[in-house]
């Protein structure tokens, strides 16, 4: 039998009456019990369907996770494999999404790491370069060689003012290492053991001095290293510093420690030995790795300009001097090459000066004098000259003059390889020269057909002692006197030849005079007529092309044998020699 729970029992026999009552009852019950009826329906549905509803679980799941996570690690252990598998599957399925998700985090971290490495490398390289050429750098290079350490490391140690080489972030109570960073090149021992020992040392010191918990060991020093400890509420920061750090460094330590505590407060409070959550402290710890190096004193710009200017001036002066010396050297070589009797066989420039080698005729110009004339320092040139005979015509002629020692009346000329002697000379000299001349280097033949061996002075004397006498009042040359003039003309012809061969000519002066009787004017005219008469006689004798004649009045004071006062009816002849080309008289009358 089925019954409608919503319908009340009816006792009335009338169906219509009953229906009306039932409807009213139903309406009343609906009005009074509707909320409860709905709840009853829901409860019945739950009882009928006993499976767990996801909606209900979703309401309590976060709280359930949190409560179990606070109790133990079991939930984490259970979920870890599924999370790992899910992550691996997600990476395989959609790697792009993973890359996009972690790129904003990894990108800056990678860039920062690269920048830090490059900066460190550049800094080390620059410092090594700066010091590599200085005097101090050489000293350090020697030290590097002696100790077997890299040069860059020696430079670093000497120029280092301070450097934070390591930073430890250590859990205060357990002494366990939460994170650790080290500068490049720092010597790192076992950081976990060191963390434990650092904590033990602090405990020991604090206990030994009866210090309270807030009184801590702040720093200690070992050799070149100083360890600074900055305490936080849950953990402390220990920096291993080489050198002498500034006090402001502590503020940086403090700042980093505070930031880490703020960001990892929960992880620090619930620390159970797992340091994984503290990997993100890397940035803060790296910010503590300060380094400061001694900067070498930089010369001021003005000093640099002055030094640079002085250097340029010095260089210019040196260049100009070197160019000048080189030009003088070149000129000297050219002059030596053109100089007769000098042959340069080797000329070179060395660091210690110049070097010359060659041949030199003893009659050639002195090379040392030429060096001085060229403006060079003789001590700067080492010259070696070997003697030789030059066949240069100028030197051959000089050599002949030097060896033959000709008298002043002899002229020596070189025609090819023939030596030609002209003029007048003693017979002995002429004979000796004929024998010696061909033996002189550069002379193959000797000619002396133009050489007069009679002495010119003898000829001059023979001419100049001539006196032509005249009758009183007459200017006609007597026949006896013409014979005298014949002898004179013969001597004059010989004299003219000797003079012309020696480059001279004969000047003949004919002077006439009278006695003192008769008028003066008449006497003067007569004197001139007598001189002209002698001249005309001599002109008829063919004296030679090189002889010129002049006439004049002979003053009574110059008459030979006259004692002054009384005159003479004579004419005299005076011969002298004059150089043909130069016009200088070579032989006095």
């Amino acid at each position: 039998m089925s019954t409608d729970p919503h319908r009340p029992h009816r006792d009335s026999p009338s169906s219509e009456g009953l229906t009306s009552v039932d409807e009213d009852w139903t309406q009343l019950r609906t009005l009074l019990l509707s909320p409860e009826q709905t709840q009853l329906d829901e409860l019945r549905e739950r009882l009928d369907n006993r499976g767990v509803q996801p909606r209900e679980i979703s309401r309590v799941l976060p709280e359930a996770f949190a409560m179990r996570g606070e109790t133990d690690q079991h939930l984490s252990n259970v979920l870890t494999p599924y999370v790992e598998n899910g992550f691996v599957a997600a990476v395989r399925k959609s790697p792009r999404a993973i890359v996009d998700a972690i790129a904003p985090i990894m990108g800056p971290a990678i860039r920062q790491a690269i920048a830090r490495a490059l900066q460190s490398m550049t800094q080390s390289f620059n410092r090594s370069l700066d010091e590599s050429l200085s005097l101090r750098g050489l000293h350090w290079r020697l030290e590097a060689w002696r100790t077997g350490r890299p040069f860059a490391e020696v430079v670093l140690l000497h120029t280092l003012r301070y450097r934070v080489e390591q930073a430890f972030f250590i859990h205060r109570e357990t002494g366990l290492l939460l994170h650790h960073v080290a500068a490049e090149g720092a010597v790192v021992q076992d950081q976990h053991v060191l963390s434990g020992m650092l904590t033990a040392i602090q405990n020991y010191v604090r206990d030994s001095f009866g210090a309270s918990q807030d009184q801590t060991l702040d720093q200690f020093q070992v050799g070149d290293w100083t360890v600074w400890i900055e305490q936080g509420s849950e953990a402390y920061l220990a920096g291993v510093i080489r050198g002498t750090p500034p006090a402001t460094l502590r503020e940086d330590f403090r700042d980093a420690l505070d930031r880490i505590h703020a960001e990892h407060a929960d992880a620090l409070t619930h620390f159970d030995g797992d340091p994984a959550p503290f990997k993100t402290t890397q940035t803060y710890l790296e910010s503590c790795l300060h380094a400061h190096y001694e900067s070498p004193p930089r010369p001021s710009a003005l000093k640099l300009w002055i030094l640079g200017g002085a250097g340029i001036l010095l260089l210019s002066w040196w260049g100009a001097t070197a160019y000048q010396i080189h030009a003088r050297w070149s000129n000297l070589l050219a002059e030596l090459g053109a100089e007769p009797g000098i042959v340069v066989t080797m000329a070179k420039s060395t660091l210690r000066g110049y070097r010359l080698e060659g041949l030199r005729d003893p009659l050639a110009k002195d090379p040392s004098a030429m060096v001085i004339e060229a403006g060079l320092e003789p001590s700067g040139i080492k010259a070696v000259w070997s003697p030789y005979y030059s066949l240069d015509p100028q030197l051959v002629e000089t050599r002949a003059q030097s060896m033959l020692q000709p008298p002043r009346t002899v002229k020596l000329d070189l025609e090819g390889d023939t030596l030609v002697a002209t003029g007048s000379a003693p017979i002995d000299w002429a004979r000796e020269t004929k024998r010696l001349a061909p033996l002189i280097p550069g002379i193959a033949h000797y000619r002396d057909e133009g050489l007069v061996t009679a002495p010119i002075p003898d000829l001059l004397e023979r001419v100049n002692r001539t006196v032509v006498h005249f009758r009183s009042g007459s200017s006609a040359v007597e026949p006896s006197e013409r014979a005298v003039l014949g002898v004179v003309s013969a001597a004059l012809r010989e004299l003219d030849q000797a003079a012309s061969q020696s480059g001279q000519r004969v000047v003949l002066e004919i002077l006439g005079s009278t006695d003192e009787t008769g008028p003066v004017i008449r006497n003067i005219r007569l004197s001139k007529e007598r001189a002209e008469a002698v001249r005309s006689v001599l002109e008829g004798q063919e004296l030679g092309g090189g002889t010129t004649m002049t006439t004049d009045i002979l003053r009574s004071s110059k008459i030979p044998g006259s004692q002054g006062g009384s005159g003479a009816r004579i004419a005299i002849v005076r011969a002298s020699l004059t150089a043909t080309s130069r016009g200088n008289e070579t032989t006095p009358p």
Partner: protein
Amino acid sequence: MMQKKVCMLGGFAVGKTSLVRRFMTNVFSDHYQTTIGVTVEKKSVSVDNRDVMLMLWDLYGEDELQRVRESYLRGSSGYILVMDGTRKATVDTAIALQQTVVRTIGTVPFVSIINKSDRRADWEIDEGAIEQLRERGWTVLFGSAKLGQGVEELFALLATQMVSAPVLPRE
């Protein structure tokens, strides 16, 4: 990697350092060296396929003259009580030390070991005393640092207890 601080406790010359040395390097030296203060060592062990780094604080042996510093005990996840089987007094020292630890850091996992089992004939600690320790709830192992007996088991057992022990939030 998970890290755990472990303290080595025990009386004077019971063999704490020898046990650590044997555990660390599998080496034993007959030459006795007293520990001054504390020496920290580390060693990784595997528990349920998870590596755990044990930071071993090898404390100096306690005797009448010097007491263990309580500050060294703080932060320990577990500790090892070492006794010398040939000296019965080291049991009392171990008991006193255990009480000190509980008083200082509370209840944390620990394992006790009676060392020098290679000289069993010279033992002063009898079965009765050992039974009393077990009645206190102690885990009592026997071993010899000299022979390397029981050393690995000692540290492995403590590591397992520490990893599975619930981490109580600190006050």
